[in-house]
C-alpha cells in the first residue's frame, strides 16, 4: 500500500474514533492526529509502530470521553448518591423494599415455572420420549394402563418407536433382617432402561436374560436409597437383600436424582414378562414409555399408533384393541409429567407479574415525587456550573443504586422463598427438586427495575435549561408545583396499580372460595381421632390366606387390648385417594344393553367387620359384615350407594348376587353403604364393592397390603403410634410399619396442592394490596403537600376542616374509582383462565367479584385518610407567610 493510500486509511480511522471526542474539541484533535500519523509515516517508522500508534489514538479518544469519570470520579458519585439516599430513609427503604419484593417474588416463581414446566426432563434427548396409555371410552376411562400382550404387540408392530419400555409400580419391604423399610418400587422391563438411557452410577442395568420369568432376582438401587439404607457402601454390588421375602442381588446403583417418570420409585426389579404368553389381555397394569425412532416426529408416531389401532380389529386375533372401545393414546413424556400442573403455575406467574408491575409503578411514583422536591436543588446546582452531564450522572447513579439494592434484596428473597417452596410444597408438584434460582430471570427483572429507576430517576434533569432555571430560582418558595402532565402521570400510575391489585384480589378470592368448597367436601367417613398405618405381608412368611387372616386377627385383638384404643379395623384401600381398580364384575342376571353401564366396578375394598363403625361410615340399607360371615358361611358383599344406583336403579340391591369376573362363588349383597370418596375429594365417587376379609382369605383372595385404622378418641391420635409398632413387632419383628400417620394428615395431603396454590395466590394478592395502598398513600400525601397553599387559604377564609378533608378524600377516591372500574373489567376477562383449577366455583363467582372492589375501596380510603387529615392540619398562617 502506498503512503498516500495508507494516509487515507489512517484519516478514515481517525475520523471514526474522533466520534468519541467531545464535540467542541473534535475537529482539532482529528486534524492533529491525522497530521501526527502522517508525520510518523513520513519519518519511515514501521507499519507495526504506525498501527499501534493509531490504536493508541483510539485509546486517547476514549480517555477524553470518560475524563472526570475516572475510578475516583465514580466512587465520589456513588458515595454522594448513597449519602443522599440515606438522608431520606423513608423514601429509600420504601423504594428498595418495593423493588426487592417485586423482583424477588418474580424470580422465585419464574424459577419454579422454568424448572418444572420449561426445562427438558433429565433424560438424554428427553423430547424424544413419549408415554402410551389406553382408554376405555365406554367405561369413562381416558387414561388407563396397558396389558402385557398389548405392550408386546405395540413393541413388535409400531415402527415409529425405537424401543418401548414398560413398568409397574408397587411397594416393597426391604432388608427384613436388618432395618426393614418400606419403599416405593417399580418393576421395569429391561427395554425401559434402554429407553431412558441413563447409565448406572455403579454396576450395570439388567439385560434381557435377567428380565425373564423365573430368572434369578436382581435389582437396581436408587442413589438415595443406597445412601440412606446401606450407607453408600461401595461393596454393595453382588450383595443379596431381602425384598418382599425374596433374596435379591444388587447389580447396580443409579445416579443421584434418577427416577422413572416421577414415580418416586427407589428400587427397580425386572418386570419378568413372559413374551410367549399372550393370554392376559384384560390385565391392564403397565405404564409404557417409548423412545421415538430417529427422524420420527411425535405427530408421525401418533399417526402410526392410530393406524395400528384402526387395523387391529381386522388383523389381530384377540380383537382387544379397537378405535371405539379400546384405543391407544400417545403424549410427549414432558407433557405427561407437567401438563397437569402447568395451568396453575402459569396463573401464579401472571399474578406475580402483576405484582412486579405494581412495584415498578410505585417506584416510578416515588422517584417522580422526589424529582419534584429536588427541582430547586437541581436549579441551584446547574446555576453553579454543573454541566448537564454531571447532573445526569448524579441522578443516574442514584437510580441505579436504588435498583441494585432492590435487586440484591430481591435475590435474597428469591433464594429464601425457593427454599421455603421446596419444603412447604405439596408432594405432587413434579420436578420441584430440580428447581434452581434462574439467573436469566433475575437479570431480566433486575433490568426492568433498573430501567424504571433510570427513567424516572432522570425526571428532574429533563427540564434543565437555563431559562427555566432562572425562573425556578426566582419563584422561590420551598416547593415548585408539578406540571399538569406530571400530575396526570401520577394519577395514571395509581389507576394502573389499583386495577392490577383488584384483578389479583378477585383471583385470590376465587381461589379461597374454591379451597373453602374443597375443604367442606364430605369424604363419607370421619377422619378425626384415627391413626392409620400400612402392613405388607410377604408371601415367604405368609404363604396363604389363612396365614394372612391369622396375622390380621392377632394384631386386631392385640391392639384392641391397648388402653385408650376404642376401635381397630383393616381395609385394602385407604380413602380418600385410592388407586383405581376398575375390575370386571359379573352381576347375576344382568342384561347388558347398548346403554346400560358395563359390568365393571371402580373400587374393590376388602374390610374387617369393624371397618364401617371405626371409620364412621353410615349403613344406608341392610347390614354390615358380622363375625359370622366367615370362611364357612355364605359369601356376602356390601355395595356403596353409587353402585346400587348404577346397577340396580329403582330396585333394592339387597339380596342380589354378583362376583368378580373369572368364576368363583357368587356373593350375596347384604347391605348398602354410604358413598366414600376414593378418587380424591374433588372427583365424583365411583362404584365400590366390599368383601369381608375372612371370606376373601378363605378363597386366597385377600390382599397382602393392609391398611389399619386405630380409633383412640384422644386429642392426638398419634399418641398410640409407639404402641402400634410394639404390637406389630411383638407378633412379627420383620414387618415394617409404614405410612404411620393421623387420618387427618391423610386428608390434608389430599388437599395439599389446592392449599398451596391458594396460599400463594392470596399472598400475592395481599402483597399487591399493600403495594397499591403504599402507592396511593404516597401520591395522595404528595398531592396534599402540593396544594397546601390552596388548602391553607380555603381554611383561612372559613372552610371547615371536615369539608377540606372531604374534598381531599373525594379527589383521591375518584382516581381509585377509575382504577376499580378498569380492574373489574380486567378481572372479568382474565379470570376465565382459572376455570381449570377451580373446584365447584365458577370463574365469575359473584361473591369474589363483590369482595374484591369492597376490599380495595377500603384500602383506598385508608390510604387517603391520613393525607386528608393532614390537609386539615395545615396552618393557614404559616403557609401564607411562606409567600
Amino acid at each position, binding site marked *: 500500500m502506498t503512503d498516500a493510500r495508507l494516509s487515507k486509511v489512517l484519516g478514515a480511522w481517525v475520523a471514526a474514533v474522533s466520534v468519541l471526542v467531545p464535540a467542541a474539541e473534535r475537529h482539532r484533535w482529528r486534524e*492533529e*492526529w491525522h497530521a*501526527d500519523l502522517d*508525520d510518523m509515516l513520513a519519518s519511515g517508522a514501521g507499519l507495526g509502530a504506525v498501527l*499501534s500508534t*493509531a*490504536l*493508541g489514538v483510539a485509546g*486517547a479518544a476514549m*480517555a477524553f470521553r470518560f475524563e472526570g469519570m475516572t475510578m475516583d470520579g465514580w466512587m465520589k458519585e456513588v458515595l454522594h448518591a448513597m449519602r443522599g439516599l440515606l438522608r431520606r430513609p423513608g423514601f429509600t427503604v420504601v423504594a428498595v423494599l418495593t423493588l426487592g419484593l417485586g423482583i424477588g417474588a418474580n424470580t422465585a416463581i419464574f424459577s419454579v415455572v422454568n424448572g418444572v414446566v420449561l426445562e427438558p426432563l433429565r433424560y438424554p434427548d428427553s423430547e424424544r420420549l413419549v408415554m402410551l396409555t389406553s382408554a376405555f371410552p365406554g367405561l369413562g376411562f381416558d387414561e388407563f394402563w396397558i396389558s402385557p400382550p398389548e405392550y408386546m404387540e405395540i413393541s413388535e408392530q409400531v415402527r415409529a418407536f425405537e424401543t418401548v419400555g414398560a413398568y409397574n409400580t408397587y411397594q416393597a419391604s426391604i432388608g427384613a433382617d436388618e432395618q426393614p423399610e418400606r419403599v416405593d418400587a417399580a418393576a421395569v422391563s429391561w427395554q425401559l432402561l434402554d429407553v431412558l438411557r441413563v447409565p448406572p452410577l455403579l454396576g450395570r442395568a439388567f439385560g434381557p436374560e435377567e428380565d425373564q420369568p423365573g430368572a434369578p432376582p436382581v435389582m437396581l438401587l436408587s442413589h438415595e436409597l443406597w445412601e440412606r439404607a446401606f450407607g453408600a457402601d461401595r461393596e454393595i454390588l453382588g450383595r443379596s437383600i431381602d425384598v418382599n421375602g425374596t433374596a435379591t442381588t444388587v447389580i447396580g446403583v443409579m445416579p443421584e436424582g434418577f427416577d422413572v417418570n416421577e414415580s418416586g420409585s427407589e428400587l427397580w426389579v425386572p418386570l419378568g414378562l413372559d413374551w410367549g404368553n399372550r393370554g392376559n389381555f384384560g390385565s391392564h397394569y403397565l405404564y409404557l414409555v417409548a423412545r421415538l425412532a430417529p427422524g420420527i416426529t411425535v405427530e408421525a408416531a401418533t399417526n402410526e399408533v392410530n393406524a395400528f389401532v384402526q387395523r387391529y380389529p381386522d388383523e389381530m386375533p384377540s380383537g382387544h384393541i379397537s378405535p371405539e372401545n379400546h384405543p391407544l393414546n400417545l403424549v410427549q413424556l414432558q407433557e405427561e409429567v407437567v401438563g397437569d400442573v402447568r395451568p396453575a403455575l402459569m396463573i401464579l406467574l401472571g399474578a406475580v407479574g402483576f405484582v412486579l408491575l405494581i412495584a415498578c409503578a410505585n417506584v416510578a411514583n416515588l422517584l417522580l415525587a422526589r424529582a419534584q422536591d429536588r427541582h430547586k436543588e437541581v436549579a441551584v446546582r446547574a446555576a453553579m456550573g454543573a454541566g448537564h452531564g454531571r447532573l445526569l450522572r448524579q441522578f443516574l447513579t442514584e437510580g441505579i443504586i436504588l435498583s441494585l439494592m432492590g435487586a440484591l434484596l430481591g435475590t435474597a428473597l428469591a433464594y429464601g422463598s425457593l427454599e421455603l417452596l421446596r419444603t412447604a410444597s405439596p408432594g405432587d408438584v413434579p420436578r420441584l427438586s430440580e428447581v434452581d434460582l434462574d439467573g436469566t430471570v433475575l437479570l431480566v427483572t433486575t433490568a426492568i427495575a433498573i430501567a424504571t429507576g433510570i427513567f424516572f430517576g432522570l425526571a428532574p434533569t429533563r427540564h434543565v435549561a437555563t431559562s427555566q432555571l432562572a425562573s425556578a430560582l426566582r419563584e422561590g418558595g420551598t416547593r415548585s408545583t408539578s406540571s399538569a402532565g406530571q400530575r396526570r402521570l401520577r394519577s395514571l400510575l395509581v389507576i394502573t396499580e389499583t386495577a392490577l391489585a383488584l384483578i389479583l384480589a378477585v383471583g385470590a378470592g376465587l381461589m379461597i372460595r374454591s379451597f373453602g368448597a374443597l375443604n367442606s367436601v364430605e369424604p363419607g367417613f370421619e377422619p378425626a381421632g384415627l391413626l392409620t398405618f400400612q402392613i405388607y405381608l410377604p408371601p415367604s412368611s405368609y404363604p396363604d390366606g389363612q396365614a394372612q387372616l391369622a396375622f390380621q386377627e392377632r394384631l386386631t385383638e392385640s391392639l384392641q387390648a391397648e388402653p385408650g384404643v376404642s376401635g381397630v379395623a383393616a381395609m385394602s384401600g385407604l380413602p380418600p385417594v385410592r388407586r383405581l381398580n376398575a375390575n370386571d364384575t359379573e352381576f347375576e342376571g344382568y342384561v347388558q344393553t347398548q346403554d346400560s353401564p358395563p359390568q365393571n366396578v371402580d373400587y374393590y375394598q376388602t374390610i374387617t367387620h369393624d371397618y364401617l363403625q371405626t371409620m364412621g361410615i353410615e349403613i344406608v340399607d341392610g347390614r354390615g359384615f358380622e363375625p359370622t360371615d366367615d370362611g364357612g358361611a355364605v359369601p356376602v358383599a356390601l355395595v356403596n350407594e353409587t353402585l346400587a344406583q348404577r346397577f340396580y336403579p329403582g330396585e333394592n340391591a339387597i339380596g342380589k348376587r354378583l362376583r368378580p369376573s373369572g368364576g368363583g362363588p357368587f356373593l350375596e349383597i347384604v347391605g348398602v353403604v354410604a358413598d366414600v370418596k376414593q378418587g380424591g375429594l374433588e372427583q365424583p365417587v365411583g362404584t365400590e364393592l366390599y368383601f369381608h376379609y375372612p371370606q376373601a382369605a378363605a378363597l386366597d383372595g385377600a390382599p397382602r397390603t393392609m391398611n389399619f385404622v386405630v380409633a383412640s378418641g384422644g386429642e392426638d391420635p398419634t399418641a398410640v403410634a409407639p404402641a402400634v409398632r410394639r404390637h406389630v413387632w411383638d407378633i412379627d419383628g420383620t414387618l415394617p410399619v409404614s405410612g404411620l400417620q393421623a387420618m387427618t394428615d391423610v386428608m390434608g395431603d389430599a388437599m395439599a396442592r389446592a392449599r398451596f396454590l391458594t396460599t400463594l395466590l392470596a399472598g400475592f394478592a395481599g402483597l399487591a394490596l399493600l403495594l397499591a395502598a403504599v402507592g396511593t398513600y404516597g401520591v395522595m400525601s404528595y398531592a396534599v403537600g402540593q396544594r397546601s397553599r390552596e388548602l391553607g387559604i380555603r381554611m383561612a377564609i372559613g372552610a371547615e376542616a371536615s369539608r377540606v378533608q372531604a374534598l381531599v378524600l373525594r379527589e383521591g377516591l375518584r382516581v381509585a374509582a377509575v382504577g376499580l372500574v378498569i380492574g373489574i373489567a380486567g378481572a372479568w376477562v382474565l379470570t376465565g383462565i382459572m376455570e381449570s383449577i377451580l373446584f365447584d366455583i365458577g370463574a365469575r363467582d359473584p361473591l369474589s367479584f363483590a369482595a374484591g372492589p369492597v376490599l380495595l375501596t377500603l384500602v383506598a380510603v385508608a390510604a387517603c385518610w391520613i393525607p386528608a387529615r393532614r390537609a386539615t392540619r395545615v396552618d393557614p398562617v404559616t403557609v401564607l407567610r411562606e409567600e
Partner: protein
Amino acid sequence: MHSIRLTHTTALILQALASGRRHGFQIMDVTGLASGTVYPVLRRLEKGQAVLSEWEDSADASAAGRRRRRIYRLTGAGQLLAERARERLAETQRVLTDGALGSVSGSD
C-alpha cells in the same frame, strides 16, 4: 496548577517541552511514550494551563507538503512545573544511583 498530578510521564513530557516547542509526534519520539499516554497528558496540561497549543502556519505546512501540525509550548506556569519535574526526576536518579534502594553493582 497544583491540580495537575506530576506523574512520571507528565514529568517526561514537560521535560520534552522545556527544550523547545514540539508537536505530538515529536514528543512521542523524544520521550518514547505511546500515543495513548501522550495525548491525554497534553490535553490535561493544556486544561491546567501549563502548556499552550496552536496550529502551525498553514503556509509553512503546505510549503513542506504536509498537513498543519499542532504545536505545544510551555507557559510560564508550565516552566515552573517543568522545573519541579526536573528536580523530581533528578531526585529519583539520585536515589537509584546512591544505592538507597540497595546496590545494583554488587559491591557489598
